[in-house]
């Protein structure tokens, strides 16, 4: 009588032990599956950060682009204006000189021409 109770208690304890071990194993498998989800979540976050950083740079570059073009054009116009004013300042003497050269004609026979 005692024996059977003792044995059944043992068996029950054994069974319970198996159950909790089995549950632990199930939890373990679930935990490992969780790893995938958590990893995915972390990765999404990381990707979001990089994307934001990239977009920021892109915006900056767009802004720079317009600014650079404007600056370049302004600088070019300044240089062209300086060019034109230099031209106006320096041209008079040269103009006169060229006109004189064009009008100063010295007719000569060819250096090799044989003249009797």
């Amino acid at each position, binding site marked *: 009588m005692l024996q059977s109770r003792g044995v059944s208690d043992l068996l029950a*304890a054994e069974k319970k*032990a198996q159950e909790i071990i089995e549950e632990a194993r199930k939890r373990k498998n679930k935990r490992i599956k969780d790893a995938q989800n958590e990893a995915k979540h972390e990765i999404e976050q990381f990707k979001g950060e990089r994307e934001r950083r990239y977009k920021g740079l892109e915006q900056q570059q767009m802004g720079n682009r317009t600014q650079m073009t404007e600056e370049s054009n302004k600088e070019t116009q300044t240089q062209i204006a300086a060019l034109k004013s230099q031209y106006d300042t320096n041209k008079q003497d040269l103009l006169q000189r060229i006109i004189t050269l064009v009008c100063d004609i010295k007719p000569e026979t060819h250096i090799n021409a044989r003249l009797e």
Partner: protein
Amino acid sequence: MGLSEADVTKQIQQMISFIQQEAAEKVEEIEAKAEEEFNIEKSRLVSQQRIKIIEYYDKKEKQIELQQKVQHSNLANASRLSILKARDECIEAFKEEIRKKLDFSKVDRSKYIIILSNLIIQGLYTLMEPIITIRCRQDDYGLVQRLIPDAIRRYKQTVKKDIEIHLDQKNFLSEKLTGGIELYAMNDKIKVSNTIEARLDIIFHQMLPEIRETLFGTNHNRKYYD
């Protein structure tokens, strides 16, 4: 006889405790392992993806940098070209200004007459042909006709040869020209263009380096002058 009831109960309790203890230890072991494998798997996946993402965005960011450099270079080029074009236009305008000032055939008649007669004789010396045809502007027809005898005289004096000059009555030089003449020999096969425009072209072209330097200043980037 054997063990008392209490002993048996005690032993069974001990065995049950033992079973429970072992189970608990096993569970602990399993949970520790679970945590460990969780971490390993998670960090494996994360770092694997991280590498790909970093590579991807690094490449894209490099693209941006490249584009900026390209744009900078394009702007510099466009700017240089604009400036060169402006310089060129200045030089063309300069030449045109000179050309307009050379249009004095109606304003300074005596100067024009001297020039015209020199152009004729210079043309004759260049051709050295016995029969010449001269073509002039319609407005200058009378004037040239009056200048031809003197030209013939000077030519004979210097070259000691006879010369026959015809003045083209059908074809004339364009009214747009500022002055001068064209001379033809050998049945119009040889032509000498002795117009004021032609002289300006040649002189201007030869003087271009000096013109550029005077108008725009010395070029500090230039290395060779011979």
